[in-house]
């Protein structure tokens, strides 16, 4: 946000805030311990607004639940902005001092009255007003979001539309107020910190800046490509163009986790060389030319991870990995050696110290301090610095320090796949409490919460509409593929919306259905919005889509 790639606030602040907008997130199930902090706030009298097309265990705790149609978040955010502006709930001093582009933004949301947004989103105008007023009047307020915001083809615009609300009200850069993406994986933040992004070097340093790159080249004694690389979606496109012919895939199972799986598997199969480094022989590993068995991050590896509040914490080894599995660092170092570059000392702390030397925001985080302080939140520029609970307090300095935080004019776009008479249902995907992604890890423990069969969940009205019974196996079809799944009636779903997970692809290979439409700036596919139809199995399949 405003140049720093991480959430602005601490969990502790979430527990001490007054209003929480949980937008496109079912944190009660997907980030349960984060939700404990939200519950602390609720116990203190805070108001929680949950914005989610589905009723979920999170909405059960909400003061109000706003259920927009899938993919209408920008319309809703714009209407909140409209109310804030027209009811005098914006922080004019903050806007003048700390932001840029307010007038253009104001003009862009002018047509989005709550009534206009109600027509577009189905959220009652009165609820939009109520949420805007609570958010605008609060001393402290947070916006937190998850994949309901980012798994869309216009993910970045969705995020910007929420940040605009924080800028209007000054709900950023101070204790208890902020804008926070809840990260879906335990080190997605740390991977970014360490430069596992196509356009960044460790510490979010720009790879295309010659001066910065030269500093890293000196440290590493190697030449770094001067242009940004490809993120995962770009890589798939490059495979399609046959420009990318070899892939080294670490701890990722794209054959099952990526949208439009028929296409992804075909592209992986057509590679000249695929190396997979993983704990298990995943579906992706089955396609590989070489499989490198790796030690697990849990209990088998030393290192660090960074969480959603930018806290860097230590991973420690407790048990030996199984015979033949090697530490990731060892594997990478050996590969490097064989490719003609000796990385020298390679243990976790030495690598971390190298990272600290190169990344100013991590410089003060020695292993000893991480140990003593129970993790440290970046930025932490030196060894006397306590770490940073919340970002951007500079926006409150008078006069302003640094560049202003810009408003962004963004425009609503419907999901790429419109509903049609042939594909009349909206499919959205998500997680359940005791499962995780494609189930490679979570599938191994016997959760009493896991139902025997993975299902397609439909609103009871849709069972009637499509003439199917609860428990009946149906064919679920999109333009890309078809799967069979038993139907489960879920009264928490609105009519027209179907819900499936990716957790058990061996039962229901949901990603054969999902659409790979992607925001080119973020590279995340539109897992939240595909168009599908369901068919009874006694109706013959017209033509086999996909393969």
């Amino acid at each position, binding site marked *: 946000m405003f140049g720093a790639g991480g959430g602005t606030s601490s969990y502790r602040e979430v527990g001490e805030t007054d209003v929480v907008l949980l937008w496109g997130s079912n944190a009660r199930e997907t980030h349960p*311990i984060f939700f404990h902090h939200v519950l602390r706030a609720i116990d203190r009298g805070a108001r929680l607004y949950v914005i989610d097309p589905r009723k979920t265990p999170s909405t059960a705790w909400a003061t109000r639940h706003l259920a927009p149609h899938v993919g209408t978040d920008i319309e809703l955010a714009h209407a909140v902005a409209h109310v804030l502006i027209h009811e005098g709930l914006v922080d004019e001093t903050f806007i003048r001092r700390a932001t840029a582009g307010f007038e253009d933004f104001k003009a862009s949301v002018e047509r989005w009255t709550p009534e206009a947004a109600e027509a577009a989103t189905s959220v009652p105008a009165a609820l939009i007003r109520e949420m805007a007023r609570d958010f605008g009047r609060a001393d402290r307020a947070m916006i937190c979001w998850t994949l309901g915001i980012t798994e869309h083809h216009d993910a970045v615009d969705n995020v910007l539309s929420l940040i605009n609300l924080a800028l209007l009200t000054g709900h950023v850069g101070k204790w208890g107020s902020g804008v926070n993406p809840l990260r879906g*994986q*335990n080190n997605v933040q740390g991977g970014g910190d360490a430069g596992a992004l196509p356009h960044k070097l460790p510490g979010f340093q720009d790879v295309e800046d010659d001066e910065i790159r030269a500093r890293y080249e000196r440290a590493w004694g190697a030449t770094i490509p001067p242009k940004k690389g490809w993120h995962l979606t770009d890589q798939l496109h490059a495979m399609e163009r046959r420009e990318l012919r070899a892939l080294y895939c670490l701890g990722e199972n794209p054959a099952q986790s990526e949208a439009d799986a028929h296409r992804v598997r075909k592209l992986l199969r057509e590679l000249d060389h695929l190396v997979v480094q993983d704990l298990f022989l995943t579906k992706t590993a089955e396609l590989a030319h070489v499989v490198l068995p790796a030690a*697990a991050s849990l209990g088998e590896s030393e290192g660090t991870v*960074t969480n959603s509040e930018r806290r860097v914490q230590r991973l420690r080894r407790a048990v030996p990995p199984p015979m033949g599995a090697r530490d990731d660092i060892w594997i990478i170092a050996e590969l490097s050696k064989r490719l003609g570059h000796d990385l020298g000392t390679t243990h976790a702390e030495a690598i971390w110290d190298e990272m600290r030397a190169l990344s100013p925001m991590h410089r003060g985080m020695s292993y000893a301090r991480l140990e003593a302080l129970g*993790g440290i939140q970046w930025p932490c520029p030196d060894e006397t610095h306590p770490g940073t609970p919340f970002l951007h307090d500079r926006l409150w300095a008078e006069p302003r320090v640094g560049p202003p935080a810009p408003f962004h004019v963004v425009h609503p776009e419907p999901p790429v796949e419109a509903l049609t008479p042939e594909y009349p249902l909206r499919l959205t995907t998500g997680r359940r409490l005791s499962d995780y992604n494609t189930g490679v890890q979570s599938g191994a423990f016997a959760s009493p919460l896991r139902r025997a069969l993975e299902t397609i969940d439909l609103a009871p009205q849709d069972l009637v509409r499509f003439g199917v019974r609860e428990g009946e196996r149906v064919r679920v079809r999109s333009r890309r593929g078809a799967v069979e799944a038993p139907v489960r009636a879920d009264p928490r779903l609105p009519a027209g919306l179907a819900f499936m997970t990716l957790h058990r692809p061996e039962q229901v290979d949901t990603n054969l259905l999902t659409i790979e439409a992607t925001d080119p700036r973020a590279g995340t596919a539109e897992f939240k919005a595909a168009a599908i139809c369901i068919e009874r199995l006694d109706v013959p399949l017209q033509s086999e889509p996909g393969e």
Partner: protein
Amino acid sequence: MAAGSPTDPTGRLVTLRRKVQLTIDGATLSVSEGSTILDAAKSLGIDTPTLCFAQNLTPANACRVCVVELEGARTLVPSCARRVEPGMVVHTDSARVRDARRTVLELLASSVDMSATPKFAEWCERYGARPTRFGTPTPRPVVDDNALFVRDYAKCMLCYKCVEACGDDAQHTFAIAVAGRGAHATIATELDTPLPDSACVFCGNCVGVCPTGALQFRAEHELREADAWDESRQSQIDTICPYCGVGCSLTLHVQDERIVKVTSPVGSEVTHGHLCVKGRFGFEYLGKR
């Protein structure tokens, strides 16, 4: 629960705690306002037995094993819950205190199987308690209704920690409560259904706070049944959960190169010692390779 934190005008945290002076066992000390007598005694290196107390729960005042003598007070006071006040004079090892603690231990042992309670035998020795003085507990069958943990209510002393952890001290699931009265009181789910049919979400936070081993993770239960549970051979290593991006601290309890239990440090700012079902139980994939 942490109280609201004072901040300076830019929102940075500041600590504004007055000091309170009191005397414990003849030693005068100053501790921060809001501390308990237990905290103050701990800072003097005094080892106070506790059972129903947990740093991450609201004091339940149920077990009375931590009582101390406060001059001017008619009754002994629970040190885990009583906040320090200026000028307090406290005795933690007077004859009255020792007598009370001995009786509490003896009464507990007469109705509850305390065999899996850490340090219980040591306390009995320290206070001269005879565990069989008032009789022995009635055996009860172990409730084994799910894959992840068992409930051995012969070991339950009704300290309410599990109820609080499941309720508004942490998890807010409210799957369990005290059912029945008096000697028939017991911890139960709604309508006493098996856990998988209740509101339980299997976070195991009840197990995490249980002081007597009435709630036991399956691996621990099975090792204990086989007489193979051996804490002297266990190490505890802190690391971070491999699942979502919250970054919960896990303490892996390892015996013979095998993870036998997962807890979370109560001092963790992320977890306050509480976990979800994946963090608590989701480690088994390690052993399935």
